[in-house]
């Protein structure tokens, strides 16, 4: 087994199969794994894949023109690509497996690439874990304010900056990305923003971080608007204009805030 720095592992093994050269012939296979997720034992995985190959009935052959490996029995052909779902089930975590380049090496060894990538569910899980770890590991509490009105933003910042690290964002398009970058403990989010509305940002953030502590800001405190935000996961709603201490009413209730306020 050989290790490469770019998360690429190679494994070579021989299996005994019927081939076009004759029955019970040895065929040497070379596997290259790319971006194999952590917590997966490479050698065990390779052996399990070999067992899958050995269990397939039929004549094993490699089509050099199509660069494709297949098993053929009684006119039915199973191409290796079709069994990638079986390999996916061998992996810890929600990852997709795709079979990449296949080629015959000079010494007759058949080489196959197995390419792994996280599903969107797994990406979401990884993002959530990252956010939680960030909050645990850092020294200070972080509050983010997403508000395009400079005056309102300054009112909020002046009230908070003596106790918290304050991140200011003035454009809705950047909000979700900056949230993931800073993992704030509390997010104050204006509804009326340029490029992307607060409702949409709230939805995106709750998908990535269901534990997000988001408080909406708006000059329009109509009941249906408040209810809609709360139903979508917001922890509170502050009508503008607001006093700085109103922000603290919500900050105090945030479970990840450590500063006494």
């Amino acid at each position, binding site marked *: 087994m050989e290790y490469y720095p770019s998360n690429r592992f190679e494994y070579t093994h021989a299996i005994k199969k019927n081939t076009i050269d004759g029955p019970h012939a040895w065929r040497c296979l070379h596997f290259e794994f790319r971006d194999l997720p952590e917590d997966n034992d490479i050698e065990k995985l390779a052996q399990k894949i070999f067992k899958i190959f050995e269990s397939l009935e039929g004549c094993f052959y490699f089509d050099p023109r199509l660069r494709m490996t297949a098993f053929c029995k009684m006119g039915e052909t199973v191409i290796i690509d079709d069994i990638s779902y079986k390999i996916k089930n061998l992996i810890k975590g929600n990852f997709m497996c795709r079979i990449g380049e296949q080629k015959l090496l000079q010494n007759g060894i058949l080489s196959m690439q197995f390419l792994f990538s996280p599903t969107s569910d797994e990406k979401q899980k990884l993002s959530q874990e990252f956010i939680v770890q960030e909050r645990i590991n850092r020294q200070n509490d972080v509050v983010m304010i997403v508000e*395009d009105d400079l*005056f*309102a933003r*300054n009112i909020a910042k002046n009230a908070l900056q003596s106790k918290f690290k304050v991140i200011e964002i003035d454009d809705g398009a950047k909000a979700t990305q900056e949230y993931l970058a800073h993992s704030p403990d509390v997010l104050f989010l204006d509804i009326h923003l340029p490029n992307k509305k607060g409702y949409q940002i709230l939805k995106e953030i709750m998908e990535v971080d269901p534990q997000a502590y988001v408080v909406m800001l708006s000059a329009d405190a109509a009941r249906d608007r408040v209810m809609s935000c709360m139903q979508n996961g917001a922890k509170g709603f502050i009508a503008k*204009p607001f006093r700085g201490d109103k922000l603290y009413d919500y900050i105090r209730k945030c479970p990840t805030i450590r500063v006494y306020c």
Partner: protein
Amino acid sequence: MEQIKIIDTCIFHEYVGNDQAEVELMIDLFTQQSSTYYAELKIAYTHDDKNEWHDVAHKLKGMASFTGAEQLYQSCKTAQDNYECSKNDKSLILRTIEHNIEQATIFLKTIKGHE
């Protein structure tokens, strides 16, 4: 009948606070930002962009509410509520807003200790 104030200083200090350094900072910010918003409103008027007119009026109204600028607040609310009115009507509203901004700025400078 109670007259609508240029600046309600109680409201101003309720939201901005009493720290002199912060008060001066926020007054400078009001002067700068109200001028910017007025310019944006004028552009929206010139291009007859109703949505932009509505959004800018909304933001200027918000800033007026934080500073206790009651007259400005009312004229911005009129602008926001009547974002689909004719250009002639908008022209009148724009002039009122310009006048209210000037008055509010002069008043706030007295709080800051100038003039």
